[in-house]
């Protein structure tokens, strides 16, 4: 992992990292990735992926019925106008 990548990943993850955080993450994530690399070279072309530990996924479809949502679930949002969530502007106002 390179310093440039830390910057790129932080941007994708919407995190502002201090330069001390960038330094320590670069070191720590490189260590961790070196450990994780042990599975990288296994030849697994024939092996299917498992998306979870569940033995068999029980696909149960519910009927598509419209139910009222619970307004309580968004009451602690930053700003609401009627039942709409208000967000800051996308472009900088400065």
């Amino acid at each position, binding site marked *: *992992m390179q310093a440039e*990548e*830390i910057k*790129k*990943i*932080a941007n*994708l*993850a*919407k*995190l*502002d*990292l201090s330069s001390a*955080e960038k330094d*320590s*993450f670069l070191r*720590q*994530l490189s*260590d*961790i*990735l070196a*450990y*994780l690399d*042990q*599975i*990288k070279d*296994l030849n*697994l072309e024939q*092996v*299917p*992926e*498992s*998306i*979870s*530990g*569940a*033995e068999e996924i*029980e696909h*149960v479809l*519910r009927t598509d019925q419209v139910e009222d949502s*619970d307004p*309580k*679930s*968004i*009451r*602690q*949002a*930053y*700003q609401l106008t009627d039942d709409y*969530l208000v*967000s*800051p*502007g*996308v*472009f*900088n*106002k400065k």
Partner: protein
Amino acid sequence: MLREELTKLNIVEINRALQNKQFSVKEITESYLQAIDHSNLNAFISVNKQALKMAEELDQNIGEAKNNVLYGIPLAVKDIILVKDLKATAASQMLKNYIAPYTATVVERLEKEGMLVIGKTNCDEFAMGASNEHSAFGPVLNPHDQTRVSGGSSGGSAVAVAASLAPAALGSDTGGSIRQPAAFCGIVGLKPSYGRISRFGSIAMASSLDQIGPMAKSVEDVAYLLKAMAGVDKKDATSSHKAVPNYPKLIKESDPRQLVIGVPKEYFSDQIDPEIKKAIEEKIKFLENNDFQIKEVSLPSAKYALAVYYLLMPAEVSSNLARFDGLLYGLADQENLALDDWYKTVRSGGFSAEVKRRIMLGTYILSAGYYDAYYKQAQKVRTLIKEDFKKVFADVDVLLTPVTPTPAFKLGEKLDDPLQMYLADIFTVGANVAGICGLSLPIAKTKNNLPIGLQLLANSFEEEKILSLGYFLENNQ
């Protein structure tokens, strides 16, 4: 009975005393609230101010205790599980003021049985950690040695039970977060099979691995809790329709000697603490002497479980925690910022180092160019690990292993070395990756008086097997 003695009782003992009118639900609740108030272990983030009022109401129908062991029993709940009108902070600055708008299905089911939530327990932030040191509310101290960690991430729940601040607690286990602190604190903790228990109302960390589970002083108590918690929930599509057995009845009536026990050699490397190794080997000998059939088995892909876990989990963490953006959830930022800067300011201020580290790692793993090499590859190794367990469970009923490579370590010891901290999960993550169930059971103490845990693993939806064997071990020492 003295108040201090009262809080030492387990669920079954409290139930007996409530039936005999030795004390009321209000009295026992008061005793625990007082114990929490006097404790310096930092096990709780908040207590339920309504608990005494609820206890009084439960006392009105105390006859119910005859039919229902859980009636009137106080319950501590990990602070990532929602209980309506109580704070649910996930031990994070991000949610420090968040109040749950509804109650998680598991808690609702236990409340229906007559349990009352006494408070919300400390944990690692968003359940990420193995020491409970990654909490915005400070570490939880181990009651057996206060210079040592409680384990994590369900450290507050483990300590609540171990220090008699609650007779029962709920934790969550994504890679060992119930079993490891249970082992460090000397209590019983169960990670149920993936799908056994609804996760509706639990703040998600890694959705393909998370399970909620019970923690208590005895295997029988855990069996009662599991029976009430388990079963399908239409609000969690991953919860299973499989029927819920009568666990407390089964563990008392079944003959544990019918169970063939496997000892996987991969779990007994040189890296394991000699005192733990000795304690486990003594238990194996004890079982042999008691006519149990024991086989050495092999799980060749087990050595990859931790690497798979630390690829899948951070990837899922980075997606699940995207919702904490300060708009719908999380700290609101007061500055007049444009949206992208707003997100970054809120998330950088609300998450602590360990959460940021895992989000960074997960975002990296899922990013273009690395997805196939890491994430997809890990999903494939997960298949190998599942097949290993499947093969072994065709031959044996229960696997017997250590829970942790070491007893509780010192506060601060692994804090600056995340990889060392991650290695604390080495024996527990396999169960999460494969979706099987695991029980952590206290079996001995080190010469420094630190608890040693034993792990019993069984195939998916075979909780009754590990509970039966655990019940036998607990009652035959």
